[in-house]
């Protein structure tokens, strides 16, 4: 199994680059999970607007970004926008593209959870004299977020996995570095198998965190 020792030596030699890539993967995943979460809440809030105009804009936003392949969106911003004089760094493009996309998905999850709520609680809050934003913050959102923990953490897993797409716009994350390892020794199976194990390990961590979060916030029945 001398193949394995060659692969191991290359892996160790390139470890600083691989770890750097892993750091960039985690950085991108963490940032888009947070920005996508926050923008998702804003989009969800606007989707409850009394104004029909605002609601239709939001419906359009969600349909557009769920309907558009992420890779097309990233290429459009990274390779297309410079023709209009707007050049952004790979990192900026990745954060922008992912955030719009992830927010649309998150808003859709929150809407689904909201459809399952009993509207009488919001009516009771209105009858108590709370305004729209207070009802959203104090009644609607805490309930909707609890119900959406599985869907929202699932989205974080998707974010981690999809972040590998960012190498196509020159963002040198973990998967890009592993491709370089594969290219130096042509041990494709080993390189990509190793990549798969790393992604699986990270996803397992997210799943564990998600379960802990659910246990922490579950309402007694």
């Amino acid at each position, binding site marked *: 199994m001398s193949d394995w020792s060659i692969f191991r030596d290359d892996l160790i030699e390139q470890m600083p680059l691989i770890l750097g890539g892993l750091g960039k993967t985690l950085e991108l995943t963490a940032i888009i999970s947070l920005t996508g979460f926050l923008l998702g809440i804003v989009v969800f809030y606007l989707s409850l607007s009394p104004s029909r105009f605002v609601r239709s804009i939001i419906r359009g936003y969600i349909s557009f970004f769920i309907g558009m392949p992420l890779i097309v969106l990233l290429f459009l911003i990274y390779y297309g926008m410079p023709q209009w004089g707007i050049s952004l760094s790979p990192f900026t493009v990745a954060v922008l593209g992912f955030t719009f996309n992830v927010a649309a998905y998150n808003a859709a999850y929150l809407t689904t959870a909201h459809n399952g709520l*009993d509207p009488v609680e919001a*009516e*009771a809050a*209105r*009858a*108590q*004299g709370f305004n729209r934003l207070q009802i959203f913050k104090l009644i609607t959102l805490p309930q909707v977020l609890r119900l959406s923990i599985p869907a929202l953490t699932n989205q974080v897993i998707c974010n981690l996995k999809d972040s590998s797409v960012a190498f196509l716009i020159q963002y040198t994350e973990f998967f890009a570095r592993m491709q370089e390892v594969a290219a130096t020794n042509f041990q494709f199976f080993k390189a990509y198998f190793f990549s798969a194990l790393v992604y699986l390990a990270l996803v397992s961590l997210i799943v564990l965190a998600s379960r802990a979060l659910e246990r922490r916030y579950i*309402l007694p029945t």
Partner: protein
Amino acid sequence: MPLISVHNLVKEFSGQRVLNGINLEVYEGDLKVVMGPSGCGKSTLLRCLNRLIEPTSGTIHFRGQDITGADVDIRALRQSIGFVFQQFALYRHLSVLDNVTLALLKLRGMSKAEAEEKALHELNRLGIATHRDKYPSQISGGQKQRVALARALAMDPVVIFFDEPTSALDPVMSREVADLINQMRAENVTMLCVTHDLRLARQISDRVVFLDEGVVKAEDTIDHLCNAHSDSKINDFFSSGVRGQ
């Protein structure tokens, strides 16, 4: 001067008249019971009085001020009206205590200590303070209605509205709610209760307002209404209750 005075109140939903010229007065210390069959507009009437539903026309005077205008501070109006719902409508993600303190903290700007003291006072008054840390899903229907009433009372309302307070409860728990309403009456709380539960009506009041097809058909004692009334609608509604007794 009446506390609430409703004059010729009309509410249309896409052309259909649900309220067709309601006239009603509630005086301070009153317990007004409004009865009627399902769909007669009882709940719509209550919701017009605190503007959860916008009336189409007519006037509503609350403490002498017309509250149907555009320049009325609706949220201040609502804060002075306690509302107890049929389905309890407790906030399910909050404990019993937090259900009562929420409005005190966020609308009255009380400190946490002040709000909890006030809330515990109301919970004690209704005999439910021992359940303060439970969630709504962990208490019975009758207990939920006590919490809902405590939540309303904590805001020191001018009047309390009950919207079918017993229709989600079994007879034993309904009796509990009737006792609560009688307790409030003894403490001189002004109340307006809509219900189709004749048993509840008998337990809390001897007079009722009968609402049908969007108008007040009669205001009389239950005994009179139950005794072979000339109006067939009234007869139908109240005779079922006679058999039930």
